[in-house]
């Protein structure tokens, strides 16, 4: 749900349901890194409701576009994390199995 104005698309507050600090803090991190963003932050109106308000103000680009781009950046970061992690685990297992073979008779 986006709360903004039709005249000025560059600032809006996005209210996401069923979300909490997990996604909101990560999105805030990627939003902050985007050079088009002048202000971004998130708040949780009440801890019992699972609802997060993310505020984005940009230098002219529509706020929903910037948010979408940040989500995509976050997805790319996650995919890279996953592939690096899998590779590291495979390397560790190979290294350990080699050590086991070397230690054995």
């Amino acid at each position, binding site marked *: 749900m986006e709360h903004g104005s039709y005249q000025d698309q560059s600032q809006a507050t996005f209210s996401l349901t069923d979300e909490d*600090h997990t996604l909101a*803090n990560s999105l805030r991190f990627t939003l902050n890194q985007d050079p088009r963003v002048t202000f971004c932050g998130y708040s949780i109106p009440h801890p019992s409701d699972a609802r997060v308000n993310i505020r984005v103000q940009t230098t002219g680009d529509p706020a929903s576009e910037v948010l979408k781009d940040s989500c995509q950046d976050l997805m790319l970061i996650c995919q890279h994390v996953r592939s690096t992690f899998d590779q590291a685990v495979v390397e560790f297992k190979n290294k350990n199995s080699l050590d086991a073979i070397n230690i054995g008779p």
Partner: protein
Amino acid sequence: MEEEKTPKISVWNLPDVPKGKLPAHLELQRTRVICTPDAATNTENIRYSGAYASMGVDNSLRLGHFRDNFRVEVVRLTEDDMEFDMIGIDASLANAFRRILLAELPTMAIEKVLIANNTSVIQDEVLAHRLGLIPLKVDPRMFEYMSENDVPNEKNTIVFKLHSCCERGSSRIKVLSNELQWLPRGSELTVSTEKPAVDPTSRPRTYTSFNCSQDSLPEFSNNPIGPKHDDIIIAKLGPGQEIELEAHAVKGMGKTHAKWSPVATSWYRMLPEVVLLQEIEGEIAEELVKKCPVKVFDIEDIGKGRKRATVARPRSCTLCRECIRPDGKEKEKEQRIYWDKYVALRRVKDHFIFTIESTGALPPEMLFTEAVKILEDKCERVITELS
């Protein structure tokens, strides 16, 4: 009063602040948390893309830069727990992974307990609570969630039976978790109805409706489903007491109840960095080495009988701050040393030492991969909602 003669340099001849790179003190502020004797300072991450714009340094996220600098190094990997380092990632992402590991990865746990007979001293609800907390060794990805209106079938429920009794005349017995028998064909307790069955040869209705035996599925045919540990004490029975019950396990998330959390716990800490600000020799070096409870410092001989303190194991530092606490009343006032002139304790802001202890449903490396996938799914949901 004499003033020191400082050489006169014209303003125009002062050396330039290097553009494109941060000066050392700002770089320290950006990448390290400084731990003083009272508290940790400088903990906020300076992530705004224009933060150092006046210095000509671009603080924005460059995916290529992230890809080049991000590393994962596995330190320890066993069947149940793992410890690995993530270098080059931000605290918000590390925390997101930790939160997902604790609360949003699904597992199977016992939810409904149908008690036919319980004459033990453990109350029904306490027994049911204990059964719910037993970790089950089953991959939750092969099952679906069950909602209120669903019928329990072989795709969303696992059924266990527990029947234990203590003979009269024998001593007390312990009911262990290996007595939980898996029933691959579903529930055996029949639902009592007022009207007798119309067709006497049909199977009576039970509490679950399994269409096929779970045994026939290829994943379960060779490894039966059961608790991860065989020696968990569920209850203790005295002579003459009996427990007969059936337990149904369903899929859930740690958000609803902690029994569905797949990790015993998972945590991270930032890499500690211990720096000696001055050369520490002789007796002061020995004192410093004795102070540290986890032996971070070591003595090194530099010839001619002189000794010097070095930092040997900074990774094991627990940040107890004993090495920077100023000396107190145990010494005379003139002999007290202010240790924070000698030692600086810092933490590296983007190097996380992650530890994951799994309860047994999935191996820890698979848990982390699933957690990252869940974060990606959340982002995708936001994107689809926006478009």
